[in-house]
């Protein structure tokens, strides 16, 4: 069985590498992008099973526009989108409702991410990674 593919879009390369390694060790295939434009291009080319999207990249609202773009593309609109951002810590009074009402995301995480919970949510949306190597997973928040 082919590994489930996750597209991770985040300009923090260290964070991308750390989370990707964790997800890969749990049997997922991770495709990496470091800005919204690259992420959207890869999403259209690769059709991942799930997308992890940062918000504040080159622009502080880049991810908001990227999520809307994903939702507008008929071939991508059903792909679950996890927003992972440090937005709350940067702008405390600006709220994104966790139910995804206006942002149209499926799950919302603030950095640092608790990886076991993150993995659990991923499994809930797209199932196990093909190799199912969850026993190797670390638990330290990233």
């Amino acid at each position, binding site marked *: 069985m082919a590994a489930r593919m996750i597209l991770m879009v985040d300009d923090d390369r260290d964070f991308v590498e750390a989370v990707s390694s964790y997800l890969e060790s749990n049997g997922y295939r991770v495709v990496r992008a470091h800005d919204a434009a690259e992420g959207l291009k890869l999403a259209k080319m690769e059709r991942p099973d799930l997308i992890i999207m940062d918000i504040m990249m080159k622009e502080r609202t880049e991810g908001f*526009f990227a999520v809307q*773009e994903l939702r507008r593309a008929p071939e991508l609109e059903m792909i679950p989108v996890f927003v992972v951002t440090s937005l709350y810590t940067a702008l405390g009074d600006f709220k994104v409702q966790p139910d995804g009402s206006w942002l149209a995301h499926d799950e919302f995480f603030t950095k640092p991410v608790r990886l076991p919970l993150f993995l659990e949510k991923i499994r809930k949306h797209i199932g196990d990674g093909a190799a199912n190597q969850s026993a190797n997973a670390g638990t330290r928040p990233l």
Partner: protein
Amino acid sequence: MKILKLPKGNLDFFASVVQQFGEVHAPVEQNGHFVFKRLARWSEARLNYDRTTIPPKKYFLPPRETLFRYRAGDGYKACSEAIDRRLVLFGVHACDIYGLNILDKVFTGRYVDPYYQSRRRNISIIGIDCSPDQHCFCRSMRADFVDHGFDLFFTDIGDYYLTLVGTARGDDMALATTSLFEPVTQEDIDRYKQSSLHKRQAFKLEVEIRDLPEIFEMEYQNEVWDELGERCLSCGSCSMVCPTCYCYDVSDSVELGSRSGSRVRNWDSCLFRTHAVVAGGENFRKNRAARIKHRYYHKQRGFVAEYGRPSCVGCGRCITACPVGINITQVIEQLRGVQNAQNA
């Protein structure tokens, strides 16, 4: 009317959140010109633009649209795919909103155009104030300020945008972003009045439109029209860029075999040679002078009689688009000059 203020620093967040009301389209720079276009990111928006090449009417009355498709035996099926698309036009100038209010009179008045009406319902308008350049004369046309036709309207008052809430949907937008707005103080109102005064004083171009319909009535045979006919190329650029020109042509595009096809409407212009051709081949406005005169009379005379005001909003697009430099303000001045000379 509810009035709030939005710190300029919050504008990108505001734009992000209003995406829930539809795709955000705003002026972006393209080859040295501005066009209304869907934003892929907020930094593409250019809110301090002078004017877009094509006005926002393109969203409500597209340059080409299929009205319905037909097939022998099946009857016809109305095309309504794009008319329910929810958009947010961000950064529309007052004159262009005024232009849409004028189109409303035509398309949602006595004879309702369902395509236009549906788009008007589904497209939100967020207006923004502007500073006039050397081609703007919207103040002369009483279109430098609008009191309706928008959901929200932003006026630059320094570190904030004073925000007028124009509709219930505008109120919903403000409610969805409550944490981004602040209440207005007397100081903000004073700044708004100051900004309004500066704008008023910045106009370089002015035309007098009082009694203009009457002057047009008197000057129907004036030689100005022949002179204009000599210069005009009948290219139709002025009509295409005009926020209130609404002429269209309807034609059938028939598939091979003639059993099915579609009915399409395209923008048309009264400056085109075939515009006044009727069945039998007669053309009521064969020469260019007659056509350009017709355009001026429709805008400044006929529309006043029908709807109580000229259909020109003074955006200046026809001045910038004309390849031979025909300038409506100069034409009006010329007519007034001739009239004054004759009266003297």
